[in-house]
């Protein structure tokens, strides 16, 4: 019987014999189901190729400096689906995100020819792989293998995204909410910039919401500064979050 993306994740979690929460396993299984399936702007094979670059970057024992080209250094096998410029951009997003600048973003788009929405989807794939692999590494459990690509065309669904004051990428503002974004926008007086960042691709918003609710705090509980699952206190959660973000030199 062929393993499904969900079963790949579920078997790794079950084999650990650790008390991994069912909602966390379900969240990782959900993003694994999407990982190599046709997306909004990339097909399944392209999404898997992006995922493989992210995985290779996370595994790089001695990352090269951000100003050097990992594709020229021979870190990746030849890939017909992604240009070397895009492979380099994915590596840098994965390993040196804190060094990215607006000038870099502009030059990267010129060199790769990708749209802002395609870049947002690259980020979605990167955060899926990074979340699943880093959790496995920290928990000391077996890392899920990548699923096989699923054939099909990308959805190519446009959103009314507009240039944004607080982002390089265009975003959908609250007043322009579409049915696809309603699950993430509805009822909110404002959407924090870091959440709005992926709004030009609703499927990426789904990935963010799914992972964040299971790995951090369910959205509806964010306002409760004493919220806990009975393990970490809210202060411990924020301490871990702040310390990791400082290591990554993420100002936001």
């Amino acid at each position, binding site marked *: 019987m062929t393993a499904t993306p969900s079963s790949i994740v579920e078997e790794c979690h079950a084999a650990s014999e650790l*008390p991994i929460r069912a909602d966390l396993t379900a969240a990782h299984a959900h993003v694994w189901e999407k990982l190599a399936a046709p997306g909004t702007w990339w097909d399944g094979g392209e999404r898997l190729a992006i995922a493989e670059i992210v995985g290779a970057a996370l595994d790089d024992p001695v990352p090269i400096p951000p100003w050097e080209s990992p594709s020229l250094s021979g870190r990746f096998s030849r890939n017909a689906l992604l240009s070397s410029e895009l492979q380099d951009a994915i590596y840098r997003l994965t390993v040196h995100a804190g060094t*990215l600048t607006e000038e870099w973003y502009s030059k990267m788009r010129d060199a790769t020819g990708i749209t802002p929405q395609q870049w947002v989807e690259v980020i979605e794939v990167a955060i899926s792989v990074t979340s699943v692999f880093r959790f496995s590494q920290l928990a000391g459990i077996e890392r899920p293998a990548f699923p096989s690509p699923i054939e099909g065309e990308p959805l190519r669904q446009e959103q009314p995204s507009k240039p944004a004051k607080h982002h390089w*990428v265009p975003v959908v503002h609250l007043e322009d909410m579409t049915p696809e974004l309603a699950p993430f926008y509805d009822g909110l007086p404002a959407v924090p910039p870091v959440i709005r960042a992926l709004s030009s691709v609703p499927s990426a918003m789904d990935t963010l919401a799914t992972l964040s609710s299971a790995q951090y705090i369910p959205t509806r509980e964010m306002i409760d500064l004493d919220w806990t699952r009975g393990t970490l206190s809210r202060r411990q959660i924020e*301490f*871990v*979050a702040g310390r990791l973000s400082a290591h990554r030199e993420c*100002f*936001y």
Partner: protein
Amino acid sequence: MMLRASSSANDMQVDLSLVRGEAAENEAVDHAPELARLVDTSVSDLNSLSAARSALVEATDDATMLDAAAVVANFEMMTRIADGTGTCHPSERLESMAEMTTSMGLDQFVSARS
């Protein structure tokens, strides 16, 4: 910011240098040294990650260690979203954070966009 807010909500003062510096035991964050070691080794000393994981489990339990691992995974995600999309804070929020970001040296990050 959220660490400060969640501490204030409980009438606790938290020394925010805890986030970047030596993480000693303190009233606001239980098991701060063990949590910090898990985070630190996962970023820069993978050979010591297993020992850090065991120390946290010994101080707490498996479920707490797993939730800490999940929070790290989450902020590996959030940092890449923020830095990959050039997300920055609104100016009024930057002003309210100014003292904290300067004292912690966060304003020296390349990612300190405005």
